[in-house]
């Protein structure tokens, strides 16, 4: 039995769409990383683009997975074994992008401090006398945040004298 050699335009379209969806998903995740890479200058427009891409990416990448499933469903039945393999493989970057768009890569590099705990000044043996601290006194409370620790975490949230503070360095 001869198989028809020509493939209808809709199959080509679905295949092209699948490829575009993969590229778009990867771009959604990669472009903000590129824009906000350290040791490169940032521009206001670049920053704005990164903000919006990061804000929309979790939903758009999921949408891309859904759209890709529709394309795959359309292509599956008459696809050869290697086409089917490629279709399945396409879902790896698609799923990867959907997952990555929901990760905070910066907090992977610099682990956040989930809850600030303090010790009495006399017990703070891990801080040398000459080490700089960020010191605040509010409503009777006096707390010192060693710069070394804050510089690593970047942000430490605490409550001092009843006031919620974000200690940053």
């Amino acid at each position, binding site marked *: 039995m001869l198989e028809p050699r020509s493939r209808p335009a809709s199959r080509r379209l679905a295949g092209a769409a699948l490829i575009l969806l993969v590229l778009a998903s990867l771009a959604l995740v990669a472009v903000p990383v590129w824009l906000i890479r350290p040791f490169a200058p940032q521009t206001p427009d670049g*920053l704005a683009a990164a903000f919006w891409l990061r804000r929309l990416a979790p939903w758009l990448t999921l949408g891309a997975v859904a759209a890709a499933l529709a394309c795959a469903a359309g292509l599956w039945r008459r696809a050869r074994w290697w086409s089917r393999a490629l279709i399945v493989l396409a879902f790896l970057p698609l799923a990867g992008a959907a997952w990555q768009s929901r990760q905070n890569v910066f907090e992977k590099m610099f682990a956040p401090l989930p809850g600030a705990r303090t010790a009495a*000044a006399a017990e*703070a043996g891990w801080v040398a006398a*000459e080490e700089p601290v960020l010191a605040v*006194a509010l409503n009777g409370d006096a707390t*010192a945040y060693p710069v070394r620790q804050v510089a690593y975490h970047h942000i430490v949230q605490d409550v001092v004298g009843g006031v919620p503070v974000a200690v940053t360095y």
Partner: protein
Amino acid sequence: MWRAEIDGRVLRFHLTGINNQNFLMQDEQTGSWWQQVTGEALFGPLKGRKLDLVFHDEISFGLWKQEHPGGRVLRPDDGAPWREFSHDWEAETAKLPVVTPPRPGDPFGPRELIAGVVVQGTAKAYSVAALRRQSPVLDTVEGTPLLLVAGEDGRSIRVFERTVDGRTLTLFAQPGGPPLRLLDAETGSTWSFAGEAVGGPLAGRRMAKVYVLLDDWFDWRTYHPETRVWR
């Protein structure tokens, strides 16, 4: 250090990126992006809003402990590699490239440490190295008389408004010590590094503290392009 609150709503922040080597943080509540050094939201629902600065010092632990023996200190998170990260952090950072291009005629090198104050909307940057050598330094910014003083550790910097009861004081270092003592020419009172008179006619009085930021010159200049300088 910022008050983590806008319109009475507590915000929780997460590290979210970097903008010309000053980091950005995102609040969980609205997803807005905030610039760390200015406390201003750049993007998102709270764009344009500014967090309130919480007055704080950046001084050495030893000096702080003397002033606040009953104070509290942040416990380290020993699950995080902050010790490895911070071992030579200042020295290493000073060698890193700067992405903001230096301008011709810049009074300081890009990574030179400056003490920055803003008085009545006017910014001024003081060379920390020169301050430490010449402390105490008297200056006036926008008609406000300032005292810039290094602690007895030769490192910690504080800034005060040197007026008490409308009278401007001229202060000098008193030889001897530790502890560091300053003397004012107008009344002969002695003053501590905390800006409090510990002897003389003005004993018990305090000079108003002025917030000072120790920053790299390139970063200060980015956010205060019209800043004055003192060397």
